[in-house]
């Protein structure tokens, strides 16, 4: 088990969480930039998300008079739980001691915890928008979460472990294997990621149109540093899904030793993988229209179906062979 007194056990996760947090706005900036290019607009600087966050942190926070203490605690709660979720996903190095603290099911639980508080905060102020956002968010997530777990179960059944660190280690050791189940799980997980991070076609992070808002409706009452924390948490979550997909399905390049060269190579490989994924997201966001809310269940049904097919093909094609 993990030696809790070793420096490595604490330093590595701390460093990687820091990296996660600092790099997340960059990824969002990159997605925005690619999207602008695709839509023939002049893109903002890659650093724009950082500036936005800095601006929000500098501003005074306005809180509704009707809000309860829960409202003010929620941004910290959401940020902390997203951070914790991010800290157990192997980012650059395969060997991550804290992955033993929380496995992938706990990771899903953490995301659910953040969402739970966010939805409550949406209902706290007593406006119509907040309740609307909360209701929609919980509806979407209640279908996305099982699809995600099902896709993840397929992977863990192959890897024989729900510990992300050892699962990726196992997959890396196996080399290139064309598993049908992984293809389906990948597709399913991507759909879930789109739904959970509030991207088009499920939600539009750039709109404040009441008919379509989901995530934005819940955080409508937030301002100043509270809003900054929530925005930042959303960016970390986007990156988290990206890293999860990149490092599980395409584990190549991740460092197996803790030498500087290996880590630098891993950083380069990860940046490349994420950049490609971001381009895919931007392409999808540009070419697809936002769905009606009641088309979203069908979209998530597809994710569920894909995850189920992944499971079926794992058992039928891969176990018996």
């Amino acid at each position, binding site marked *: 088990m993990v030696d809790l007194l070793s420096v490595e056990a604490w330093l590595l996760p701390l460093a990687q969480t820091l990296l996660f947090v600092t790099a997340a706005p960059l990824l969002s900036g990159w997605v925005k930039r690619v999207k602008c290019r695709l839509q023939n607009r002049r893109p903002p600087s890659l650093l724009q998300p950082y500036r936005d966050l800095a601006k929000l942190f500098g501003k005074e926070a306005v809180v509704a008079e009707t809000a309860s203490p829960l409202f003010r605690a929620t941004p910290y709660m959401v940020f902390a739980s997203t951070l914790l979720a991010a800290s157990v996903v192997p980012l650059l190095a395969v060997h991550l001691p*804290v992955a033993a603290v929380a496995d992938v099911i706990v990771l899903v639980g953490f995301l659910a915890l953040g969402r739970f508080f966010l939805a409550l905060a949406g209902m706290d102020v007593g406006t119509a928008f907040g309740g609307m956002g909360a209701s929609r968010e919980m509806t979407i997530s209640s279908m996305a979460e099982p699809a995600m777990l099902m896709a993840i179960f397929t992977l863990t059944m192959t890897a024989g472990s729900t510990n992300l660190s050892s699962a990726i280690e196992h997959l890396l050791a196996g080399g290139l294997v064309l598993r049908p189940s992984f293809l389906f799980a990948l597709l399913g997980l991507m759909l879930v990621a789109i739904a959970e991070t509030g991207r088009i076609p499920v939600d539009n992070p750039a709109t404040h149109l009441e008919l379509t808002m989901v995530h934005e409706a819940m955080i409508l009452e937030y301002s100043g540093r509270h809003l900054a924390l929530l925005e930042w948490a959303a960016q970390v979550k986007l990156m988290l899904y990206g890293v999860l997909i990149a490092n599980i399905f395409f584990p190549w390049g991740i460092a197996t030793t803790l030498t500087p060269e290996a880590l630098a190579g891993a950083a380069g490989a990860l940046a490349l993988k994420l950049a490609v994924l971001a381009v895919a997201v931007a392409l999808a966001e540009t070419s697809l229209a936002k769905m009606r809310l009641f088309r979203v269940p069908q979209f998530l049904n597809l994710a569920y179906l894909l995850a189920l097919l992944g499971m079926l093909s794992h058992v039928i094609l891969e176990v018996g062979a």
Partner: protein
Amino acid sequence: MALLLAYLAVLGSLFSGALSLGANRHPALLKYGAFPLLGLAGAAAAAGGAEALRSGEVLTSHLPFGLPWLAWQVKVDALTGLFLLLIGVVTVAVSFYGPGYIREFQHGRHSLAALGGFTGLFVAGMLMVVLADDAFFFMVAWEVMSLASYFLVVFQHEQAANRRAAFLYLLMAHVGGLFILLAYGVLAAFGGGFGFEAMRGAELSLLWSSVAFGLAFLGFGMKAGLVPLHAWLPEAHPVAPSHISALMSGVMLKVAVYGFIRVVFDLIGTPHWGWGVAALLVGSASALLGVLYAMVQNDIKRLLAYSSIENVGIIFIGLGLAMVFLGSGHPTLGSLALIAALYHAFNHALFKSLLFMGAGAVLQQSHERDLERMGGLLRRMPFTGFFVLVGCISIASLPPFNGFASEWLTFQSALQGVVLENGVLRIMIPVTAAMLALTGALAAACFVKLYGVAFLGQPRGRRVRHAREADWGMGLAQGLLAVLCLGFGLFPTAVVGTLDAVPQLLFGSGLPHATAEGWLWLTPAGAEKASYSAPLLLVGIALAWGLSWLLLHPRGRRTVRCAAPWDCGFGPLTPRMQYTSTAFAQPIRRVFEPVWKVDEQVERITDKDALRVVGLRHQLQISDRAWQTLYEPAGTAVLGIARRITRLQTGNIRVYLAYSFFTLLVLLWLIS
């Protein structure tokens, strides 16, 4: 020692019941006599149970009651100990909660003597059920439990709906009891005696053991509220006084689970994997339908009752997995699944009692049980609000609280399904796990609804606006349960280590790896497969929270400004603009539409020229499909048969004499 404490507990609760018989004259007797005594009895039960669990020894004894040839046999082992502990803990909380809660009945027409008396009898009955070691004593205790709870359900009998619910409850309890009796009958016939020891030794063919299993599953499942026999539960549990609802939903359902475990895992012996599949299917259906029905309820106590069905479903998923693993020769995995189920049973007792008590506090303070008229209670009842939040997080199975720990264990045992040889099972078990995930996610949505609508936002009705914080004893009871919820979530290793005694007792196989890495690490199937450390997780949350607060929170200037919420520039917001409970559930209702029987009518009211719509009338009625598909046909069939049978009753005395005459002839022929 454990046995002595258990006896003390039974006697204490009986005395508490006897003491409250004078409560109609002296209401203080209840507050200063009956409830403290009940609390002591609960403490004794909890201590005895803990002792039995810890030591793992088996104690038996006889009581000089019962049939001449079968004295009541009593036994305390690890399984009994666990359930004694469960009953005891909740009873202690109830004894703190009760005095404050019954204050509103003091000046009413209700008989306090009946309330206190039957409460004592009810607790004693439950304790005796888990102590019983022969079928006869078991059934007597079971009936005491059922009947006492019937009188508690019918306590507020002036409303016809309550009487109807109570009658239905009585009926179902007895139909269920009949099945249990038949199951014992089968076992006793092969084992040659009504003692559990004799039944254990019975050699049953697969057919007969399946019959016994089916009967026990029906009987205990009916009491536990499994789909599709659940429809009585959300009628009966909410109408009882809230601390009784807590006992019924939190504890009595677990007594049914105890009975099921005792019969299937202990008396019948090694379960067949096919039974496990049945339990898995029924459990998954109960979990999913339970939470979906809970989602659309607007009555806070009904919602909680439906959520009990969901949780019992989760427990049966665990039990089903245990049976599948045991039946296919994987005892270690079987004990993992069984421990997950027991763990969840305990957790559910804690958080469901907590939530019922919170709902009771709201009900007592505002006389409101309709979510549509609630709102803003967190500001008015901060302590209750906080404790209910803890309960909601726990029941929504979010880390690091207790609901998550047991669901995590269930997931882990389901993921070990790869080891099974049967390919179809290998597919079915992960799919069940996905159903469990869906249930968990929907439960989160459901409790966001409950908490968000009731405790957050602005009051939607007049009554909740004047709500005040409840009595300190009620707060203490909830606080105790809330602390236990967190404790059971933070130290799963200690819980699993303790629960290990139960599978050791039942099939001699424990979970050696689960706590092998010390108290910090829970590793149910070996460290390389999965691990979970709740204490470190809490440290992580505290660290992340603290660091982000330290680094990002500005100091030295006014940090927040309060202002009116954003109204889009259209003038002030009113509480009626908030999302209601029905509105919150509407998207989910639309997605899972076929599940409910929905009767929705929208009527347009136009002005006299019929040109302009001046108003809309919306009516929505959501009812349980089990009524029309199972209960009503069954009721009609029974009535039809009864009508046929009444033809025997002609009213002519000579015909009756002829019946007696022929009966006599047949009997004489039989004994000759």
